[in-house]
């Protein structure tokens, strides 16, 4: 044992304290670095050599990250769910605004206003202002519905664009992870890659918030990443998956997703993360079987058809000389009506199956076998009843020919492919009754046009001349077996019948979903109130789930912080501690020097 040994021991103490102070400094510097795990120096006493039992000072055995792998794992797992709920919440709030009826300026108030205008019209059916008001009410309703569709579909578009952006983000993250992981593996051979592991953890957390993943820790310090369903995303620092938009279209009409060139069933294979949230918003919340657009379309279909069925059996202030249907008859007049594909339904036909869009009028499949009765004559008091039987198993052409065979009435198809009814010169006509719904399906006397919420509109003829609005019904002597018919121009039964449409209970179905009934049977108001209420519940449920998840994540983050986070108090205490040990070691050097000087003095 010599004085120089003493100096060596002191030197080791000084160096260790310096390293410890460096670590404290590093920790303090990273106090606000996200994902940073505090590092601690582990000291190790240097053992005595074989000739002595006195130790040789201190060594830095290890600088360790303070982490709990289980907590980190739980955070990654939780961030997937949080990401999903957050993505949903962001768009659900936007969509909810479309259905926010509390400001009394939504679809419900317009629906009420439209039908209330019918009541006003029934009070004075000849008042041109009432008619114009009713047409304006119909336009307001149709425009608002179109606006709702536009907002919803325009919400789906950025969602889809965000999905594309997110796929790029995932690819970038995977690529970065791959190279970082490789660096870590090579670094781990010589020593712990402390900060790199934090960086990797941060990337993995980011990836975990985008898509649900599971992470396997390898012995060499590397990791393997899979989707929670088992798709390989990162393997042994060598392979990282590439996600891309595929050529196939989903049920909602958007491009699918492929992973390494293979179609990826996002419904089954992605269970969490922001990507899942966005996919749910696009394919389930907006589109899809129970999506808001689907439900809105079902409501619009019902409003259009039910209103048109009644309006097609009304007569305006004067009887008609000619009427043009509002619907395009499609390109097939010679196929049985009940075998036609209505617009805008998508069906797969042929071998191999090809998706095609229907062309027949949207309501053609709603036509049933029934009697269509006209009153034809020279004036209101000289009308003759003429009936034809409408048969949906016949073609459009055949049914039109039946009408054309009526004396004084002609049924033709115009250049725009619309059904046109024209009375002979000096003759006028009106529809007395139509139990088949044929007139409504062809758009004769229709109020609403279009095939869904995207293109709902109002009959242009009514907008151009609101006096054409049908408010009267032809008066027959015996409704069950009419033999005589007259026309009263101030009759209000048409307007009353139209007003009653809002009281009618309907089944809301969509042909594109094979007639699946949406919601309960009820009035338009009931259906819409239920739809809005249920959507509100969905938003609320998501919001509550998000809050719960955020609380859980907050707890886990706090837990991680309590393990891995930097506490300034702690570091400052450590600072004093290591400062003091450094000072003490310095003192030891000084003492050794004194000893040495003493010895030199002795010489």
């Amino acid at each position, binding site marked *: 044992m010599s004085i120089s040994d003493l100096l060596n021991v002191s030197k080791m103490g000084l160096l260790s304290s310096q390293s410890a102070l460096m670590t404290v400094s590093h920790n303090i510097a990273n*106090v606000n670095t996200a994902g940073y795990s505090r590092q601690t120096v582990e000291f190790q006493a240097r053992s005595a050599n074989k000739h002595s039992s006195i130790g040789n000072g201190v060594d830095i055995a290890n600088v360790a990250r303070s982490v709990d792998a289980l907590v980190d794992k739980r955070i990654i797992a939780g961030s997937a769910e949080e990401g999903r709920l957050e993505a949903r919440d962001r768009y659900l709030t936007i969509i*909810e*605004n479309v259905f*926010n*009826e*509390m*400001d*009394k300026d939504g679809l*419900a*108030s317009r629906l*009420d*206003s439209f*039908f*209330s205008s019918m*009541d*006003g019209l*029934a*009070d*004075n059916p*000849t*008042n041109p202002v009432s008619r114009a008001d009713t047409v304006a009410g119909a336009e307001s309703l149709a425009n608002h519905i179109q606006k709702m569709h536009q907002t919803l579909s325009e919400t789906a578009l950025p969602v889809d664009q965000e999905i594309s952006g997110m796929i790029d983000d995932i690819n970038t993250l995977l690529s970065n992870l791959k190279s970082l992981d490789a660096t870590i593996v090579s670094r781990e051979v010589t020593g712990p890659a402390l900060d790199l592991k934090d960086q990797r953890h941060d990337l993995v957390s980011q990836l975990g918030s985008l898509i649900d993943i599971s992470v396997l820790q390898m012995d060499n310090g590397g990791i393997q990443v899979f989707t929670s369903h088992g798709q390989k995303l990162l393997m042994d620092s060598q392979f990282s998956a590439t996600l891309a938009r595929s050529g196939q279209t989903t049920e909602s009409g958007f491009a699918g997703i492929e992973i390494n060139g293979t179609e990826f069933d996002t419904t089954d294979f992605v269970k969490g993360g922001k990507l899942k949230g966005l996919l749910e918003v696009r394919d389930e919340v907006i589109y899809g079987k129970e999506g808001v657009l689907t439900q809105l379309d079902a409501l619009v279909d019902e409003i259009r058809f039910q209103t048109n069925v009644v309006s097609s059996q009304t007569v305006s202030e004067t009887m008609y000389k000619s009427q043009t249907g509002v619907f395009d008859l499609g390109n097939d007049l010679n196929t049985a009506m009940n075998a036609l594909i209505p617009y805008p339904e998508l069906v797969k036909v042929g071998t191999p199956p090809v998706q095609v869009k229907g062309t027949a009028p949207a309501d053609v499949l709603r036509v049933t076998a029934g009697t269509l009765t006209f009153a034809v004559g020279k004036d*209101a008091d000289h009308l003759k009843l003429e009936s034809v039987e409408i048969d949906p198993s016949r073609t459009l052409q055949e049914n039109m020919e039946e009408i054309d065979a009526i004396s004084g009435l002609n049924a033709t198809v115009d250049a725009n492919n619309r059904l046109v009814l024209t009375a002979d010169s000096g003759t006028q006509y009106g529809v007395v009754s139509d139990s088949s719904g044929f007139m409504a399906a062809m758009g004769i006397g229709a109020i609403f046009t279009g095939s869904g919420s995207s293109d709902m509109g109002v009959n242009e003829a009514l907008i151009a001349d609101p006096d054409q609005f049908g408010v*009267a019904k032809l*008066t027959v002597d015996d409704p069950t077996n009419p033999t005589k018919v*007259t026309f*009263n*121009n*101030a*009759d*209000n039964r048409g307007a*009353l019948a139209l*007003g*009653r449409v*809002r*009281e009618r209970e309907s089944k809301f179905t969509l042909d594109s979903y094979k007639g699946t009934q949406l919601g309960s049977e009820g*009035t338009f*108001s*009931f259906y*819409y*109130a*239920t739809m*809005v*209420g249920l*959507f*509100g*519940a969905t*938003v*609320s449920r998501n*919001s509550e789930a998000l809050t719960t998840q955020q609380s859980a994540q*907050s707890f886990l983050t*706090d837990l991680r*912080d*309590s*393990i891995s*986070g*930097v*506490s*300034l108090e702690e570091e*400052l*205490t450590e600072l004093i501690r290591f400062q003091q040990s450094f000072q003490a070691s310095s003192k030891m050097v000084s003492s050794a020097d004194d000893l040495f000087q003493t010895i030199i003095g002795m010489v």
Partner: protein
Amino acid sequence: MRVTQNMLFRSGVYAMQERSQDMMVVQEQSVSGNRVNRPSEDPTATYRHLMFSADLSGVQSLKKTTVMATERIKAAESNIDAMYDTMLSAQELALQYGNSFVGGDPEIMKAASTNVFSYYQDFLKNVNQEMDGIPLFGGGRTISPFDETKLTVTDIQRRSKNVGDFQDVSSGFQATLSSGYLPKELPLSVKMIYASVDNTFTVNVNGVDKGSFSASATDPGSWFLQVGEKSGEGFTFQYPMSGLQTAMKNSTASADGTDIATFSSEAVNGSKFASTAAQTNIDAVQAVLAQAVPGSDLNLLATNMMAADTGGTLTREEADVLAKATVTYATSREDAVFIAANTIGPQNGDAFYFEVVPKYQGGTQDRSIKVMNGRTLSGNVTGGELIEGTQNGRGVNIFSILAGLRGAMLRGDTTEVQARINEIQNGAQQISDLQGVTGVRYTQVDSVSNTLETDEANLTESMASNSEADLYEVLSHMQQISQSLDVLASTQREILNNSILNYLN
């Protein structure tokens, strides 16, 4: 547990964010006045709000229309009241001048006829009254219910021997206005007296004698009565020939479309019955009906094929006849049926009357009033019911009555005035009936209107309690959050400033 700075910061920020969110909710509530401002805040309340809104909209709409309908019925009622008063005045006048002691002076009666004319004009004005651009009594048509350019000739009535009450005549009598002819003076009352001696009719129009004409020998007789200034302006008067002048060649009686008897020529009036039988209004024939039960009623359709004795074209005449099976003359003709054929022609001294009055142009049903979901009430009564006695009326033509009364006054004929009292009373009763109908409808609609008002108040209250914000609660909540924020801010300041760094210096 170790506590780090980040944990303290995060916890503080999180708590502040939560309070700020609460503050924003309170701010929204105070601005909108609604407790619920978006569906997710309270989905059930949103659903109820929408359902209440739909109900309230329906109720408010109904209330609006029933209030307007009430006004319309009220206006109609007031006009009908005026009509009823007018009918009472007409009745009073008829009672006064139908009495020969009081109203025997033709000149006074002529002067008083102007009152009747004003009654007619009052009626015309009242029944054509409009509201909101639509006639009150147009029955669902905008056309003026009565227009003096659209005329009708009433059914012909007869006073046998020009005395007594008015009687309906058989279907053979009919007067038709010549096409395009519009009399200058309306309404017209025409009286014709038949004289069998020279087979002539003497004509009087609104108290002015128009001469006489010879009845035609053809069957049925037809004569053009020139009334207007230009040639062809007048009426065609058709009448059947007398039973005495007619031979029934073939007659059948059928029930439910099946011939049940054929009358032989022997059964013709005048052959089996004494000629005096023809003096009554009923011409009778006889047939054997084996299945008829004596005393029972038989609804028969009598079809007579007639021709003049001199020959010529057979005329087919059909009439629904209520016959009564009875036991008769001959033992061989038991269960015989007398058939009232009403085909008798004019008899000597008979007076025939008809009037020319405006014809109802409106519809048969008025605008219904929607009073609740799926239920409507009838609107106003129609001009047809009021003036022509159709549907809910008593079949009395008020204009015809007033025209006839005026004609009788202009003719200075107290007996005719007297004879018209019954129909005037019927007319007044008809107006009174419809007054009652309108009154009931007014009460119904008014009652519905009141009910709707209550419904509106209830629904408004329900909506308010469902979704409106309690401002006291909102303010209290705001105060609470504000205090909470204050406390949180000061606490955070203390916590975050409290660091060992302060002591290291």
